[in-house]
């Protein structure tokens, strides 16, 4: 008996010993059996482009050099933010912004704020402004205090 015939006989033996008929895939049955997984596949596809963008970012961020560069840029940005001119200063505001009427302009809080802002000059200027609004253009701060104190 030659080798080819022996091999054929062995092939027949194997085929006859185990069920090797082609299995058929039933898609509908599978979907019913695994609805969650199929739904995840179909619905998850809609967010794929977004995931792809982050995928690119994650690939870039795998590089150690990229990580160090990002860390350096972040630290420089924080340093520049802290050291920028006028970072710790309060924004200058005109007295009109917080004192709308002459009465408000001469309250103790308002006057204190004016003094803090520009010393006696600012205080006097605010009083003059209050007096101008009241129609007494020539009234000085001293006159105003005298008037207020009787």
């Amino acid at each position, binding site marked *: 008996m030659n080798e080819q015939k022996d091999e054929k006989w062995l092939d027949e033996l194997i085929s006859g010993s*185990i069920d090797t008929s082609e299995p058929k895939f039933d898609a509908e049955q599978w979907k019913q059996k695994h609805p969650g997984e199929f739904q995840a596949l179909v619905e998850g*596809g809609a967010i794929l482009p977004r995931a792809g963008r982050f995928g690119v970012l994650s690939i870039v961020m795998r590089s150690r050099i990229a990580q160090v560069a990002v860390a350096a840029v972040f630290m420089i940005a924080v340093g520049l933010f802290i050291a920028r001119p006028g970072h710790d200063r309060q924004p200058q505001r005109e007295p009109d912004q917080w004192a709308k009427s002459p009465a408000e302009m001469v309250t103790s809080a308002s006057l204190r704020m004016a003094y803090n802002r520009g010393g006696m000059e600012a205080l006097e200027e605010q009083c003059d402004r209050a007096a101008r609004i009241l129609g007494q253009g020539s009234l000085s701060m001293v006159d105003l205090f005298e008037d207020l104190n009787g």
Partner: protein
Amino acid sequence: MAQEPDSGLVEAAAYGDGDSFTELCRRYYPAMVAIAHSMLGDRHLAEDVAQQAFATAAVKLRQLRQKEQFAGWLAAICRNEARDILRSRKPVCSIEDRPATGESDENAVCESVRAALKKLSASAREVVFLRFYDDMPYEQISAVLGISEQSINGRLRRAKKKLAEYLRRDGYGEARL
């Protein structure tokens, strides 16, 4: 659709095309059943495992970076599913699709073949099952195992030689093998 390469179908499926995914399932179902069958020795259980592998693949498909390696990736999932079954229950390593009564010579030979198949290494048994599942083409076996057709041929030849040797030791086919 049947002629479309795997990578195109995988790409479409990853974008939520269910039909592309079921086409992939249809294409690789016999191979996955063969792999699970070679490990579990139970055809019906193998079909369940293959279907579970597709379910896992559906969830994890977007993690697959090299779309052209879908078949190998799916086979790895299928093996893991089969291993989980083996771990979680008493191994069903007996290849007993066709119960032998032991009455006839034919059945006795079949029993010996099944016993010989059990003695083969997992990779050798896998290639035998893949090849014998409805004469699966070498091209598909190559895609699933990730090895060349020449390597498959060599592995299959060695597996058959071993099988013949085991059968000879059992006293079967002495005249022919």
